[in-house]
């Protein structure tokens, strides 16, 4: 068997989705963003909605998401993605509108926009990447940073009397009447990737059913910010993040 036999299309077992382009990703090794991007691209291709989807990019590591996924995008000011998505969906109700936000974007500076979009039950999908840290700006403390967790602005570990508690925003959002679906997923194993994909697809589908807002939280790693190898990050996430942010559906109606 020579090499051309191996790359024969008949032997194809996996192909990158066409919705993802070939731009080299800027994400660090071990980062969860790339996997989540790929899942979004696959879902858009499989649902055949490339011409009906508008993504809202955040400020944070995913600020350049529009460089990798070939759909129409708007890049929002820090935290304001749900406000943009609200207007886009209200004016184009037959489009799939999703935001892609990190924990600082969604749960700190954009808390008001997040809560009020959910409270109005906007028919949008919110993809929420929670890695407990500000990756883009160099590893500062996030609202979701765990107690005792070190960051560049909590170098001795997050201290509750000074910095308060890790903010479990998905639990909050699940209480809201405008929200139809809240789930917490991860992408660190093959099984978890498959489950996360189903969850994101459900979020996209919900947005056309007039049921309200869907939130898919992906508990993620930031090996650069956490100062660990990718493998160490995955283990650390399972041991430390999952107890604070447990996997599974918080709401599904």
């Amino acid at each position, binding site marked *: 068997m020579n090499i051309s036999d191996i790359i024969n299309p008949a032997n194809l077992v996996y192909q990158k989705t066409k919705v993802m382009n070939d731009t080299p990703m800027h994400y660090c090794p071990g980062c969860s963003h790339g996997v989540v991007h790929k899942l979004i691209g696959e879902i858009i291709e499989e649902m055949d909605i490339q011409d009906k*989807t*508008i993504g809202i990019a955040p400020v944070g590591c995913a600020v350049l998401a529009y460089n990798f996924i070939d759909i129409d*995008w708007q*890049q929002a000011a820090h935290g*304001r993605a749900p*406000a943009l998505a609200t*207007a886009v969906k209200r*004016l184009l109700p037959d489009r799939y509108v999703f935001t892609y936000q990190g924990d600082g974007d969604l749960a700190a500076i954009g808390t008001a*926009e997040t809560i009020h979009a959910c409270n109005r039950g906007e028919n949008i999908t919110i993809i929420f990447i929670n890695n407990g840290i500000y990756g883009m700006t160099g590893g500062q403390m996030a609202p979701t940073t765990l107690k005792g967790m070190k960051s560049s602005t909590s170098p001795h570990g997050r201290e509750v009397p000074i910095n308060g508690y890790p903010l479990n925003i998905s639990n909050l959002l699940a209480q809201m009447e405008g929200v139809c679906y809240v789930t917490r997923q991860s992408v660190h194993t093959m099984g978890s990737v498959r489950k996360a994909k189903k969850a994101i697809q459900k979020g996209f589908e919900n947005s056309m059913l007039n049921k309200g807002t869907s939130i898919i939280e992906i508990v993620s790693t930031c090996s650069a910010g956490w100062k660990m190898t990718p493998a160490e990050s995955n283990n650390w996430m399972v041991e430390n993040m999952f107890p604070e942010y447990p996997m599974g559906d918080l709401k599904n109606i």
Partner: protein
Amino acid sequence: MNQHKKEITLLKGNEAVAHAAIRCGCDGYFGYPITPQSEILETLTELEPWKTTGMVVLQAESEVASINMVYGAAGCGKRAMTTSSSPGISLMLEGISYLAGAQLPCVIVNVMRGGPGLGTIQPSQADYFQAVKGGGHGDYKMITLAPASVQEMADFTVLAFDLAFKYLTPTMILADGIIGQMMEKVVLPPYQPRRTEDEIKKECPWATLGKPADRKPNVINSLRLEAADMEKLNLLLQSRYREIEKEEVRFEEFDCEDADYIIVAFGICARICQKTVQLARAEGIKVGLIRPITLFPFPTKQINRYADRVKGMLTVEMNAGQMVEDVRLAVNGKTIVEYYGRMGGIVPAPDEVLIALKTKFSNIES
């Protein structure tokens, strides 16, 4: 000829904005209540245009959310607007800078009240600098229209959308509490249908309406990580501002041809000073008035034209003296430019301005 009957109604300036927005095919209004402009959102929700033209009206959770909703809507090529008053506009400045950077057209109305801080709900013109000198971060400008009547509140709502789309820039209507709250006769603009999606695709090929197979993704964005790219965007914006300065200056003159003294005033102050001109001329003092209608672009050349011919100019402003700087730049030292104004929500009266004129130019003879 349009077939619409010219219907004269009596409306508050704020109400006129709401009616004009619906009539000119606005797609989306996003706003947050604040005195003295809440009648705009109140009128829109009373009129329920979503049942007629399909216009979306949404009370947002804050001014920050409002302006970002405008960004989202404008990014889809839609005619979007927001309205607020001074403290609310301060909150919007981040979003306005993003809109300018992303070259998005939209209309923002500021019905100014006194500041700084929470200030007063009484009328003011203290946001002149904020509107015409940038306000938010980065080198950007907004076309800024200063209405002086309820009629202009309606007319400029239509004009502002046209200019915003012509130059792909946020456009501001800089009004004040009096113009917003007072009632005058107004002829509302004729109804124009909202644009269809096909029309938007044609006019705004950059709009994010969903990527068809035959074009590249559209991205609404103000981020340029490479300095060279960022400078390129800046140069593009600046060249557009130069074009606006060349093409879009609007102003009005009263009794300037034989004037010894010229008052320069905008918005409600221009109305007040029209009466001052009448009072002065009744006393034999030759006073004229220039009213800048566009504050950016500023009628620099038009003011300069009189610099050699008058004994002095006086700006009258409801602030601590802001436009006076632009008038001084316009005359470039050729004549004396004085300022008279009131602050904190106090409105100068016509005779008060005349006394100020006589005091500032003590050599005045009737």
